[in-house]
């Protein structure tokens, strides 16, 4: 299998990471060598194997539905790069 530049551009779009030509070529090289290594899994037949989704074999505990974090508006906004009157500010989205 080979990951081409078109695929890299597609993944970069899905990942929301901008990638220029030079970086795309480097990434294609790296990803191809990593996927060559990953291909080893195809040696195994796994048709009848149940996928393992969690090693912690417990059922989730129930708890009362109570509000625990109150009045933390200030804390939430504290680290924002840009805010205004308790709102996060982002570049304009509506023309």
């Amino acid at each position, binding site marked *: 299998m080979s990951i081409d530049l078109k695929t890299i551009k597609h993944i970069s779009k899905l990942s*929301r990471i901008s990638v220029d030509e030079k970086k795309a070529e480097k990434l294609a090289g790296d990803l191809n060598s990593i996927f060559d290594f990953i291909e080893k*899994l195809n040696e195994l037949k*796994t048709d009848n194997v149940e996928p393992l989704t969690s090693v912690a074999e417990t059922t989730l505990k129930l708890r009362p539905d109570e509000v625990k974090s109150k009045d933390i508006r200030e804390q939430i906004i504290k680290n924002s790069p840009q805010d205004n009157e308790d709102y996060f500010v982002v570049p*304009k989205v509506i023309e």
Partner: protein
Amino acid sequence: MSDITKQSLTELVVNIKDKKLSSTEVTKAFIDRSEKSKELNAYITEDFTSALDKAKKFDQKPNLDLKLPGIPMAVKDLFCTKDVKTTAGSKILNNFVPTYESTVTDNIWREGAILLGKLNCDEFAMGSSNETSFFGNVQNPIDKDLVPGGSSGGSASAVAGQLTPITIGTDTGGSIRQPASFTGTVGLKPTYGSCSRYGIVAFASSLDQAGPMAQNVKDCALLQEVISTYDPKDSTSIDFKRNQYSKELTNNIKGKKIGIPKEYRVDGMPKEIEDLWQKGIQFVKDCGAETIDISLPHTSYALPTYYIVAPAEASSNLARYDGVKYGFRAKGENLIDMYEKTRSEGFGAEVQRRIMIGTYVLSSGYYDAYYLKAQKVRKLIKNDFDEAYKKVDAILTPSTPSSAFKIGEKTNDPVSMYLNDIFTVPVNLAGLPGISIPAGHDSKGYPLGLQIIGKAFDEQNILNIAFAMEEKINFKNKITDWWIK
């Protein structure tokens, strides 16, 4: 009392309880040594002024019933610490000051310890050499320009270099055990669900675990006792009966059955590692344990599985870094452009690589072929261990396939870097506890570690085996203080 920083955690606790040392004296000693050790680059953020204040306050009204009374401690910069900057080794969190405390660090402060500062690590814990940190390489106290391992490289360097009596790291694929092995220290990765993940910057949520990194097994057991608690704030935290690990520690391992997995004898493994392993086998026999040859047939599939599962989870976990709510923001022409530039400028190359791998294996058309396949192989890997544990109580392997390497030696070849974790990754995939203890030196005089893998929730057993072996091995770390002028 001279040489405070040379004392183990256990010794310091006794000396503070016996009032032979004050918290202020101890804290000052570690701050002084940390100040002289800037060249190691072990710290990202120092919190020395505040640490001294806390130590003085402790001494005014010392509570000597606590387990870590007035003990100063630096921690990996992946744990959120209230009002102290937490970066995860990344530019994207360079200005992030948490408004809450992680459960693990909270447990530590409750027992009387004092934060010294935040320790360097690979960016988002993605790396095996601490070279992916935005804040630069960390030096290994063993030798100049030698990597300390990773991702908990700053933690390992700080313990080995005696900048902190003990510390905590996190381990997703070997990030506690590999750096412990590279620096001649002890590192425990607990069972998945033993230590709360609440407030730890997430990398791969089904694999991440916090654990202690120490100078010896007893110190390690004491810290494990403090950090392992059931926490309703982490839905994967498990409510099981935890031992008093340090109190119950014993070197009596007579009759224990220890498995030796043949698949860990990998191609190209240096003879020194094989010899070390044989030495370890002899040591456990000398302690009265029995060794049994076992097979973990899917071992060679663990790394490829890991490099699907971990990046997949990372790509999802790291989606939150968008420049809106916290962290670094780049200028963009519109919202999407801002997202893309923030993430491109804010994340380093290795993190971007892993996000891309993760996004790809989860993307439409590839999910079954990669992600689902990896989850199935993960099941086979776990089954191998389940099968083995019908016959044995624990498993003994080398910790790493080599000793520490030079800075820059492996940065251009991601796959060769990944191979560092060949013996540690299967343990995370199966959710088991594993401990690395220093067991010898290679021809260059660099430390080498052995790993003991336990059954789930059987930390006490592997700590006991490690404790018994430690006595026989009688390892002495060769620290020359080369970085102190």
